[in-house]
């Protein structure tokens, strides 16, 4: 208990002070870690805790990004106001996909594949319809004022990502300590036993996917505000879905810190290969290396170490 608290306090202090002492690019890297950890936690809630493996979480991310962007551009909303609306949209999409899929009795691989198809359908729609500006993507007009959810200094995006990450950790922590989380885990471990013990398995899965949808959608809006541009492939592409799955599976599905550890490791490997690529001419194109490493880690973890990197921290994690 005390050791964990000490470690967390230390990590928090480091995270707070990093932008004040580190060069600018590290601030961006740190922002990326917290952002990835945040959207990874969305996957973790439905895929890790509730055990419903999704291959299409980008459907929520993209819904969030497009909802807030359209509300701003087309309807003139303030970005901060559009944010909760985006989360609501993500939750609704999660609810609809869950109700349809789980009513039809889809489980396991079938559920994973139908989420993939939903994300693909959304990507194609965003790529074809005029109100999403089709394949052109959507550009948010740069007007860097905090009131617009745009910041001149990237430090503020860093702190915002850090705050989001902490919120997501708190949500996961609450899950491990409460009735909802207990039920989600029971559903993951054994649906029949869960049912016999009075758990409405269908309802719990729907809750998990709706919550996951809201969180990933919040990440989508954050992304849109940070880069001021989204297009169908960025928002709904397979890569985003896989990224959320990977950081969580590698870090440790169903654990509080899994997505954060996975995001740290993925971003770390990414930075190493990027530096390598820029410093050593022979390694000009080694960037895919990070995903190769991650693909291998995914296979090893699923095949050999199902609890992910977080297993190494299990003792600490469990008695949080």
């Amino acid at each position, binding site marked *: 208990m005390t050791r964990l608290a000490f470690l967390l306090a230390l990590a928090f202090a480091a995270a707070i002070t990093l932008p004040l002492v580190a060069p600018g690019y590290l601030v961006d890297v740190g922002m990326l870690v917290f952002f990835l950890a945040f959207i990874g936690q969305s996957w973790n809630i439905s895929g890790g805790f509730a055990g419903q493996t999704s291959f299409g979480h980008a459907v929520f991310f993209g819904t969030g990004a497009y909802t807030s962007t359209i509300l701003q551009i087309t309807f003139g909303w303030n970005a901060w106001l559009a944010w909760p609306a985006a989360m609501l949209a993500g939750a609704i999409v999660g609810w609809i996909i869950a109700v349809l899929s789980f009513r039809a009795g889809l489980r396991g691989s079938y559920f994973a594949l139908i989420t993939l198809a939903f994300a693909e359908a959304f990507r194609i729609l965003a790529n074809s319809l005029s109100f999403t500006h089709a394949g052109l993507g959507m550009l948010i007009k740069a007007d860097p004022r905090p009131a617009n959810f745009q910041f001149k200094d990237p430090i503020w995006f860093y702190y915002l990502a850090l705050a989001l990450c902490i919120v997501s950790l708190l949500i996961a922590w609450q899950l491990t300590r409460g009735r909802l989380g207990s039920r989600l885990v029971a559903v993951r471990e054994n649906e029949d036993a869960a049912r016999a013990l009075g758990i409405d398995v269908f309802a719990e899965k729907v809750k998990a996917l709706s919550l996951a949808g809201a969180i990933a959608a919040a990440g989508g809006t954050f992304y849109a505000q940070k880069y001021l541009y989204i297009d169908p492939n960025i928002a709904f592409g397979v890569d985003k879905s896989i990224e959320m799955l990977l950081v969580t599976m590698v870090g440790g599905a169903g654990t509080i810190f899994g997505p954060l550890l996975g995001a740290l490791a993925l971003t770390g490997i990414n930075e190493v290969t990027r530096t390598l690529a820029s410093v050593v001419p022979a390694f000009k*194109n080694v960037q895919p290396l990070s995903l190769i490493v991650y693909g291998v880690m995914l296979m090893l973890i*699923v095949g050999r170490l199902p609890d992910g990197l977080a297993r190494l921290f299990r003792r600490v994690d469990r008695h949080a």
Partner: protein
Amino acid sequence: MLDPGILFAGVLNGLLAGGVYVLVAVGLTLIYGVLHIINFAHGSLLMLAMYAVFFLWRLTGVDPYAALPIVIGGAFVFGYILYRLVIGRLSHGRDENILLITLGVSIVIDNVALLIFGGDTQTIETPYASSFVELGAALLPLPKIISFVASLLLCIVLGLFLARSDTGKAIRAVARERQGARLVGIDVDNIFALSYGIGIACLGAAACLLMPTYYVTPSSGHAFVLVAFTIVVLGGMGSFAGAAVGGLVIGVIESLGGLLLGEQLGQIGISVVFILILLLKPSGLFGARQ
């Protein structure tokens, strides 16, 4: 309303495209039927085979059709080894775990391809690429007709192999009842690896037939994954007849979708079919049960 001539041409073109889809889907359904593995790496392995065809042509000048035996053989060996060394060893537990293993395989293959081949789009130039055959109102590209006929011939060969040869019978026995097959002395693990190899060999063939009219990039696999899964789910997981019919149906749906809804929105037909089948009849048209 669309001109009937255009519609006719659309249906024919869709059927022709569907021929290769059948080959891709037969490989997927074979692997599922025998191993109960949903091979998410299917698209990536197809992409790899397409690069093999491309480099054979580029480096040695071998025509894609002449490359058929080489690429089929190479794909079989690659699939066999991949199963023995990686997939067979890591696959256990829940079915989504096995799906995640093959996802890992596809991530590795896609990015290795990106690392080695770069992100450029590669195409093959053949003298017959722009030959057409006129059929009523429809103008059909010759390579697509060749690929359609060749696909169906290869499927028949595979069907005969499964029906007649001893190995084929062993494969069917394992698909039906793996414990029983083990009891009568069939080396089930070897049959698994062989079946996986054969499934990938189908991709080798499909790659040779696709390359004269198609292009390849490291992300080419993505385009085929959902198509292949849709066909197999539509026809019923593990069903050969289903894969054959499903492949042609999806080819036509894709072609007509493009005609009716435009090139971008037309692609949505596949995802929608996939979603509807899973929601309404997950056993597919020919499958007994999920």
